[in-house]
């Protein structure tokens, strides 16, 4: 048993995909020219005032409910004061002591067990702008500021320190992403920054309930990075403790290239955010009936969907959890089943070749060129004996590359399965004549020899011969 127990809590920021910013009517669209999605309010010009976007509240309540939180009856916005060039007012409008939602949880699957991770709070705040550092690597000589992202609505989701390993942290973040994607309020794209994660991690002697000194880890831009950074930090802190040292409470940044966390030696600017209620905004009194309406309108969430797949489609629990972990993938799966009833076959292809190709090409299902109807079209051709399983794999890859219909691929490449008794028989005869020794082996009881002969026939027909017929005819010939 390990001498130390790892204690991790995650702070996750999610950008909400409203059309406009949280406190002004500027667009939230990603990727505009620098400083073109701005107005006096999000530029923080003298004299401007914020007005709260109601859609943000609705979306944040949706997140809170999906995470099993209690939604506050009374909430307000506070100013968090700190100086940074990406923050035009030098304060961020956030929520301090009266967050929108509290006391929630989500479940993760870990080693075949369900584990509940507590959610401390969900609150709303405005995003900062973007800084582009210029100059040689290491120390930038100057920076450029783009305020397009300034004021994009965020929810911050803070977990309880219930997470006990880097694997659990990853599972938590994956589950959180899935749940939020299901609610439809965010794309949760880590690469575009619409899902961001910081971690607090500490170690304590196994069996102790006192928390050890924590470090805060930033700059983890993928699930893999999260897991690696935390693993590194576990090892680093273990080493310090083993040597009788003390962990320094500090913020560390993950260096992906070097695979290490590094201290962010902040020129000590005394962290004192001086939160106080924002006098430019009025409190929120949240209508219970509205909350219940939003709750009633919540879509089916990953856990519910997974249970339904197992029950309704009879697919294995593991497959169901993999497919439902991504809303897009689960939607794809269900679209396949609209015109095709063999869920198990679809699940096998989705779990197998489809996932493999998506991973290999690093694209997500939304950008996959194979439409559900094309996948099921191919399955139907298999079922009808038009193509063999082996040919299907070729067709599938071709569909993935080109987006063409399976029927067209099969036709263009002449991949229709040969099921003509006479045609197959004549190839079989040729193969047997060319391989008398192997034929003899089979006759004398070496079952293995059959595989070789079938392979030769398939090779001669470029995979198109109906494998069942080939088997049957060879057996008949050598009986």
């Amino acid at each position, binding site marked *: 048993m390990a001498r130390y127990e790892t204690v991790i809590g995650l702070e996750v920021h999610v950008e909400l995909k409203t059309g406009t910013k949280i406190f002004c*009517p500027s667009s939230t669209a990603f990727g505009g020219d*620098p400083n*073109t999605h701005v107005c006096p309010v999000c530029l923080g010009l003298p004299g401007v005032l914020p007005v709260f976007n109601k859609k943000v509240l609705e979306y944040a309540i949706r997140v809170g409910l999906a995470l099993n939180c209690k939604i506050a009856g009374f909430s307000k916005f506070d100013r968090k004061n700190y*100086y940074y*060039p990406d923050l035009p007012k030098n304060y961020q409008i956030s929520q301090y002591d009266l967050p929108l939602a509290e006391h929630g949880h989500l479940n993760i699957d870990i080693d075949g067990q369900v584990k509940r991770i507590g959610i401390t709070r969900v609150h709303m705040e405005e995003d900062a702008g973007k800084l582009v550092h210029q100059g040689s690597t290491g120390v930038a000589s100057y920076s*450029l500021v*783009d305020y397009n992202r300034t004021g994009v609505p965020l929810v911050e989701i803070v977990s309880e320190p219930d997470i006990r390993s880097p694997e659990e942290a990853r599972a938590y973040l994956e589950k959180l992403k899935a749940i939020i994607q299901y609610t439809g309020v965010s794309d949760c794209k880590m690469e575009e920054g619409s899902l961001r994660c910081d971690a607090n991690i500490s170690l304590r002697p196994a069996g102790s309930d006192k928390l050890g000194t924590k470090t805060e880890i930033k700059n983890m831009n993928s699930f893999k990075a999260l897991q690696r950074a935390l693993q590194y930090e576990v090892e680093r802190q273990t080493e310090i403790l083993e040597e009788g040292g003390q962990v320094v409470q500090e913020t560390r940044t993950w260096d992906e290239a070097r695979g290490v966390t590094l201290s962010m030696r902040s020129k000590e600017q005394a962290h004192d955010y001086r939160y106080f209620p924002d006098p430019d905004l009025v409190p929120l009194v949240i209508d219970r009936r509205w909350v219940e309406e939003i709750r009633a309108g919540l879509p089916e969430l990953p856990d519910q969907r997974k249970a339904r797949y197992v029950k309704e489609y009879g697919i294995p629990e593991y497959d169901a959890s993999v497919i439902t972990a991504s809303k897009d993938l689960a939607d794809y799966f269900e679209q396949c089943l609209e015109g095709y009833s063999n869920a198990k076959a679809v699940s096998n292809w989705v779990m197998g070749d489809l996932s493999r190709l998506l991973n290999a090409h690093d694209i997500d299902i939304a950008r996959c060129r194979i439409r559900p109807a094309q996948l099921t079209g191919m399955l139907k051709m298999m079922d009808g004996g038009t193509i063999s399983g082996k040919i299907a794999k070729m067709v599938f890859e071709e569909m993935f590359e080109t987006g063409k219909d399976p029927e067209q691929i099969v036709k263009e490449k002449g991949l229709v399965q040969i099921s003509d008794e006479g045609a197959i028989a004549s190839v079989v005869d040729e193969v047997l004549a060319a391989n008398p020794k192997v034929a003899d082996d089979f006759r004398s009881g070496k079952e293995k020899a059959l595989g070789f002969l079938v392979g030769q026939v398939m090779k001669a027909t470029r995979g198109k011969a109906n494998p069942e017929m080939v088997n049957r005819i060879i057996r008949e010939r050598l009986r």
Partner: protein
Amino acid sequence: MITIAEVEHVALLSRLDLSDEEKRMYAEQLGAILEYAGMLDELDTGNIPPTAHVLPLNNVFREDREGEHLPLEKAMQNAPDREGNFFKVPRIV
């Protein structure tokens, strides 16, 4: 009542670069003002709710409808320094 060290801490939080003379002056003046403010302690406010807003307003919203953006040149017309479409600032660390 207020030390130079406290003045320096507050100046750091406020991003103000004060001369020694200013530090001494503010230490003295802030001390006097805070001492005067000490009269608030005469009042027992244990059961008094704070008033952050005088108007009994809540739930003021806008709809999620896009408005006009500032044209780039207007957004940047007051920039002390720029590079292309960006505001330019000296190095951060």
